[in-house]
């Protein structure tokens, strides 16, 4: 039997070029690592960036993404398909980020220092990053997912398990708060 990545090639070839969500779930349930690789290709860039903004540095962000994949692998058999696969993955990622953040804060016993890239050419970007730190968690999360990562309101609502209207309202509150903070900091 031909083996690839520790799997019989037969399983590796079961994955179509453009698998549907259901096909990916089925292959993930079989433990097909090619399916996980496809998930990684599709979502890792956004997952890393979102994790970076939540946990504060690249190394922890990567660790969180890795932990998310492990949780997906362990839990996919229980995934009933009530939401899309990506929604479920982002939900796990966000929970992992908050878990890691809590762990870091416990270890450091002080607020976690964040990597703020200092780019003097982009003062608004820097000011925005600092202002984001002052938002409450739900507003910040919705702002990051919608404005920074480009997720749709329907997707964010599904991830956070809130109505779409609530999600829009949190985004508006986030932007209004950011505008206030940025106006204050510039005067």
């Amino acid at each position, binding site marked *: 039997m031909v083996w690839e*990545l520790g799997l019989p090639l037969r399983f590796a070839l079961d994955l179509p070029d453009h698998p549907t969500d259901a096909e990916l779930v089925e292959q993930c349930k079989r433990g097909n690592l090619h399916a*996980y*690789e496809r998930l990684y290709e599709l979502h*890792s860039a956004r997952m890393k*960036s979102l994790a970076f903004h939540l946990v504060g540095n690249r190394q922890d962000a990567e660790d969180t993404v890795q932990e998310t994949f492990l949780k997906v692998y362990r839990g996919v*058999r229980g995934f009933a398909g009530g939401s899309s696969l990506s929604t479920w993955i982002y939900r796990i990622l966000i929970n992992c980020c908050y878990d890691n953040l809590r762990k870091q804060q416990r270890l450091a016993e002080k607020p976690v220092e964040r990597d703020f890239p200092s780019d003097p050419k982009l003062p608004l970007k820097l000011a925005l990053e600092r202002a984001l730190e002052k938002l409450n968690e739900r507003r910040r999360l919705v702002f*990051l997912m919608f404005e920074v990562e480009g997720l749709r309101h329907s997707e964010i609502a599904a991830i956070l398990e809130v109505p779409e209207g609530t999600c829009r309202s949190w985004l508006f509150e986030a932007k209004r708060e950011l505008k206030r903070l940025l106006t204050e900091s510039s005067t």
Partner: protein
Amino acid sequence: MKFECGDLDRALEVSELMPEAREHLKQCAACRREYRLWNEISTTARQLHEAWDSPALWPKIRSVLQAEPKPERTPAWRKQWKVWAVAATLLVGIGLLLLPRLQEAISTPDTPNVAGTSSPADRDFLTEQALRDVQRTETAYRQSIEKLSQLAQPKLADRSSALAANYKEKLLLIDSAISETRSNLDHNRFNVRLQTELADLYREKQQTLQELLTRDQKN
């Protein structure tokens, strides 16, 4: 209504500014600055997306996943545990249905009595007892078949399937025969032949329902 500086926040709640707000912006420099900042927040936010190469990340994740025990497939019989539970109940039911017939054979006058001591009054009591057992078992058996019927309902409700229509027709015939036999039994409760017929009909219904459900599993 006159639009004032304090109304700007409320006006920003909708994606497109209302004409009064646009008119106000033309005349108010402070609100113009705020509105520009509002839009810049969104454009600048896109630059906050943090992208970096991590060539070692996927290989690391892959090796972690490889080290995990392979997820086991749930055996098909475990997925269909309800069917099997009902089938097991039915089997017990059949066994209990046959038991009174055996008791009846023991208590009939031409059958040699093992103990050889029971009086006619005892035998009447035993027959009455056996009948009660049959009725109790039949009720339990009927309830189990009802459960099986409920499991088969979605398949039977499929109007597009000719097979489902055939099964439905067959089950209707069996139900009608069951109803007729039970009605006859009401007039002659001790008739062993009718009790046997009724048991056979229930068995037939059970087999039909199981066939429908297992056919679905195979397909």
